């Protein structure tokens, strides 16, 4: 589904963001991209959706030579990819509803499809009651969920998610992850950059770890942290007086506001009618 072959990306100013990366991701896989800040996770996702061109190497996405195609073919490629951006990238002059509908409109879906799909997806991410708000009227987490909704509303072949839970509390994060998991189970390939070790550790999927632009680990059913690495210093300073430490919290199911995600998801995934 996605293949990167010896990909190197050098930004202007001689910044090496990816170095000789080779990854092959099959149809239906769920891949976590992990690594410290600035290690090149977003760069890899940007390369996959052809927001950037590699300085070297080749990229194939959904059977197309993404790194080599002419500019006018790019929109077509992007329509088969749903993307959750790290900085959301919502259109400030469009409402929540319109932002999500936009992803359907670019593919020319008839209006009745838009009218039935968008509300369902918004319900899924728990934003039904905020459909008519503008992005600046939303909290950070709500904006992030709009970005998530827009990414999968047109049932893409590939879903690229750049820290889709960075602004969400653990409960809502789990809700979003359940949705991504279900989408993945319907056959969509998911690549997700994340810093949330709780999620990575609970889901145990393929983990690709980056460091300074290089792939340093590619492990199926991996965890966030490589166990071989030693802890390199004293822990965070606790409050002066000792207290009873509670057990570490377990990831919980989503408390998405409007309805239980399971039923919502069923309704949404069964209503695919018009869209092939």
């Amino acid at each position: 589904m996605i293949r990167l072959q010896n990909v190197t990306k050098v930004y202007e100013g001689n910044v090496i963001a990816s170095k000789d990366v080779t990854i092959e991701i099959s149809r239906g896989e769920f891949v976590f991209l992990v690594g410290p800040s600035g290690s090149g996770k977003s760069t890899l996702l940007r390369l996959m959706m052809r927001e950037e061109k590699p300085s070297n190497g080749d990229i194939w996405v959904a059977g197309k030579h993404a790194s080599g195609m002419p500019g006018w073919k790019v929109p077509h490629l992007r329509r088969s990819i749903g993307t959750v951006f790290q900085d959301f990238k919502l259109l400030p002059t469009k409402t929540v509803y319109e932002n999500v509908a936009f992803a359907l409109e670019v593919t020319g879906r008839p209006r009745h499809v838009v009218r039935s799909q968008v509300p369902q997806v918004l319900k899924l991410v728990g934003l039904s009651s905020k459909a008519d708000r503008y992005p600046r009227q939303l909290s950070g987490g709500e904006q992030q969920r709009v970005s998530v909704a827009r990414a999968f509303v047109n049932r893409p072949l590939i879903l690229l998610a750049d820290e889709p839970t960075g602004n969400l509390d653990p409960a809502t994060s789990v809700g979003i992850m359940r949705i991504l998991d279900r989408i993945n189970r319907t056959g969509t390939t998911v690549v997700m950059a994340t810093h949330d070790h709780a999620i990575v550790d609970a889901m145990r999927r393929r983990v690709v770890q980056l460091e300074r632009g290089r792939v340093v680990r590619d492990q199926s059913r991996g965890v966030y942290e490589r166990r071989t690495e030693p802890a390199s210093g004293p822990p965070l300073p606790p409050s002066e007086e000792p207290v009873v430490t509670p057990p570490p919290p377990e990831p919980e199911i989503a408390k998405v506001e409007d309805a239980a995600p399971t039923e919502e998801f069923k309704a949404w995934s069964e209503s695919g009618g018009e869209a092939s």
Partner: protein
Amino acid sequence: MERKRGRGLLMRIQYVLNEAFNNIRRNPLVVVGAILAVFITLFLVFATLIAGEIARVNTLRWTDDVRVIAFLDDDADVDTLRADIESWVEVEEVFYVSKPEAYEEALELLADQQTVLETLQDAPEIIPASLRIKPVEIGEYDVIENRLQNMIGVFSVESADAAIDAMNSIRGTLQTFSLALAIALGVAAVALIANTINMAIYARREDLEIMRLVGAGNWFVRTPFLLEGVIEGLLGGAVAVAVIVGLYRLGLGSLETVEIITLEVDSEFLFTFGLLIVTFGAIVGLIGSGVSLALNRYIRS
């Protein structure tokens, strides 16, 4: 397949219209700025065109008085001559001025040349009778002059050559000047409007970038902006025409009586040029947005 494609097209048209109107509704500052620029520049262009037309109408009136004068022998057959001349295609009208009438006229014309006047008064009969001939086209006076020269009964032909040429040249200068001004203003209008729309698009560069990232094709992103440019151009042009016509009608009522030159302009002229100005606005709006979309690096793929 056919039907589906047809419906897709309809969807897109609807989308484009929607999008353009939403943009206009949600970015009032930018849109008002663009319309203002179109309005001011086209206002100036249209005002210049009208001033030019007023000059043209007025200088045209001067030439109403242009006549070729054929002085007649005392024994000329006035009626035959007159009928003959009236039949020429170059001639519009012929008047006969008898000897006594000519004397009266001379007294008036030379009122401030006392010395000449005194001489005249001594011999009123030296002023001959004449036919005054109005040419259809002011430029044809020399053709008429030549034909008259050879006619029996005409002893001398006169026309204010220098005066006619001067009038023509003033008219020409005025017309050239107002045309040049209108063109200069038109060019300035194109540049200013394109510039304004360019900045309006720059102000929304992030939107455009995001649209492309979500998979919108070139025309899906561009068409609403092009349409928006056209609408802004249309509105700016329409406001300019409305304001000018309003001011003009207002000015006409209060000014016409005081001045000897007419300010009246053919209402057909107003209509035609008003329409032209509005069309011009729309085209410039289209060009402006087209150019900025082409130039703007945020929208290029």
